[in-house]
């Protein structure tokens, strides 16, 4: 049986705009992945513990509230604290270009802005997933 890529799709922060997260969840499913959808208002702690319990290969974060500089690095910090280095973490949403270098320096592998085709995300995951 071929290995399924498992992705936790989470919305950290308090904004309730989950259109993007849901579209992505569906697109990943249609690309054959198993998506664990955790919904709105997730804390970094919840997201990381979920990824561990679910043996996720990928954490996909979506945020539109502007709190990304605070919340995204918390996720990668917590992963590091738990000694996890093989989960691919990336984000999407309304994130100014100027914040991207900072987020990448904190271990967020990529930031997808508004309008990114879902296929780009699918391909990104397939190429960059750390556990083969």
């Amino acid at each position, binding site marked *: *049986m*071929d*290995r*399924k890529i*498992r992705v936790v799709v989470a919305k950290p922060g308090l904004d309730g705009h989950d259109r993007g997260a849901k579209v992505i*969840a*569906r697109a*990943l*499913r*249609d*690309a*054959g*992945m*198993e*998506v*664990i*959808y*955790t*919904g709105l208002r*997730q*804390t970094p*702690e*919840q997201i990381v*513990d*979920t990824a*561990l*319990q*679910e*043996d996720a290969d990928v954490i996909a974060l979506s945020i539109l509230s502007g709190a990304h500089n605070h919340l995204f690095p918390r996720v990668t910090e917590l992963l590091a604290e*738990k000694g*996890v280095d093989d989960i691919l973490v990336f984000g999407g949403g309304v994130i100014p270009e100027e914040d991207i270098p900072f987020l990448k320096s904190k271990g967020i592998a990529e930031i997808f802005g508004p309008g990114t085709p879902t296929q780009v995300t699918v391909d990104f995951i397939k190429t960059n997933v750390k556990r083969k």
Partner: protein
Amino acid sequence: MDDSCAALAEQCVAGNIRAIARFITLLENEDTQAFAALNYFKDSGQAAQVIGITGPPGSGKSTLTDKLVAGFRAQGRRVGVLAVDPSSPFSGGAILGDRLRMQRHATDPGVYIRSLASRGALGGVSRVTGAAVQVLEAAGYDRILIETVGVGQSEIDIVKIADCVVLVSVPGLGDEIQILKAGIMEIGDIFVVNKADRDGADRVVREIRAMLETQYMLAAGQKPHAEPDTLAGRMFEESVTGHHGNTGGHVDGYGDAPGAAPVLKTIAENGEGVADLIKAIEGHFARGISSGAMASRRLERVRSQLQDLVSAQVMQSIAGEKGSGSLDDLATQVVERRLDLYSASKLLLSRYFQGEKR
């Protein structure tokens, strides 16, 4: 057995979350080393109470599971949850959304929640759900809750895994009781009518009770000394020993018939009735253990799991072969009317056993 799997198994027993999670993934990927390493778990941990939550889509299984987790945690239990959602038949992918309702427990170290995709299995659970239970048992979870796929009529494989099956229904499904008819009624140890805040809950309770009673009468009439591990047998036994499970949730003055499986109302959303459900579950285990029904049920279960496993392995080995005398070859011969089905099966089996001897 592969060393890394053995090491992983050891970490599972020590309760390492990542190891447990990884191990279940290996099982899902049909990693033979991982299956071999299940051997590691045979005498670790204690037998957990395995509780299945099943019922139609959207009936509140996840919400109820969330509340049961909270209830068992309050008792100091360590709780494992396996939540099964269907895989897409088109892409093989899945969106697993059950844990959404349980996320408040995500950071509780005494709770492990794992979402499983059905991956083509049609019985309401995934193929590895049973094996995953073993992993969680070995890791020291003493209450294991399994939420099945939202079921229709025939997805009843949960009985092969759980010690106690909670069958959830709701008012307002149109022809309410219809959904519970064929086949599925028999698997319920406890019946829950959730969304009792909606109109019509009492009616569903009455209808389920009536149905259980008819079943009980029929079964008892036909076979008064039924095996204790069938529903009728359990009911019969309970009726003679005078135990019966319902400790609450009585509906408009009528209680459960003596000996009948308990029927309870809940409002999972706000937790109403969940304490009673927990009592009913406890009652089920207490009675089952003291009467020996639980033990024979487990024996029956392992037997059936063993059968499934053996036939799966035989099939796997047969299906992989090619050439003369293979599955394909014999099937062709049957189609071409050179052979009959029955003889073809004999040929396949004998070929399999020869292969085993080689």
